[in-house]
């Protein structure tokens, strides 16, 4: 799968949200809020970019077991690894 990703920085790491799932990006006093379709939202320090189509690799069980549950795969953007969120399972709690 090769979606376009909205890449944000959150807690020092890069996170990718498939662009198709993003309803809105709001800039707030403490950063940005990415609103997802379905009413969920993700808080982040900043939106660092929008990727073109990137390759998202799936996860083998030993790795998946050790990553946050919302992470559906890994991608590389600007030579930096990005944790790609599954749309259905975006990180709960969202605000940092």
């Amino acid at each position, binding site marked *: 799968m090769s979606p376009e990703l909205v890449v944000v920085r959150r807690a020092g790491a890069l996170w990718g949200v498939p662009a198709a799932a993003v309803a809105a990006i709001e800039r707030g006093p403490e950063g940005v809020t990415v609103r997802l379709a379905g009413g969920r939202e993700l808080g982040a320090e900043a939106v660092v970019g929008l990727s073109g189509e990137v390759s998202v690799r799936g996860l*083998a069980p030993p790795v998946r077991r050790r990553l946050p549950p919302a992470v559906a795969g890994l991608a590389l953007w600007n030579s930096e690894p*990005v944790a790609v969120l599954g749309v259905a399972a975006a990180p709960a709690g969202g605000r940092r």
Partner: protein
Amino acid sequence: MSGAHLLVRVGETTAALPAAAVRRVVRSLRLHPLPGAGEGLLGLAEFAGEPLAVLDLARLMGAAGVAGASPAVTVVTWIGPAGDRELVGLAVDEALEVAELDLGAAAAGAGEVLVAERPVRLVDLERLGEEA
């Protein structure tokens, strides 16, 4: 049964990784820690244009690590059962050599062989990390 293995040092333990599963031995990759990650996952890295999860081999083996020492070498290898493998990085303290191990001479069940009078733990990459 015998085969080439990569011997690595993890803390005070010498471990043997099947050479066929190992793709490359490199210096420690630059790690990007991921908040919320579970034990044994040191972070994410990039290797040869691919994203890579880097695991702590010592932690996965349940071996005693050396406190405060950051692993100097990353072994890029395939783990997981055939058909559902994933390329990961294993952080080790030192890569020692590639050696042919006579596994028949060892008690396969114990997962340990003697190489030059030293005990070497055999790592089953297909099952690595599953038990944790």
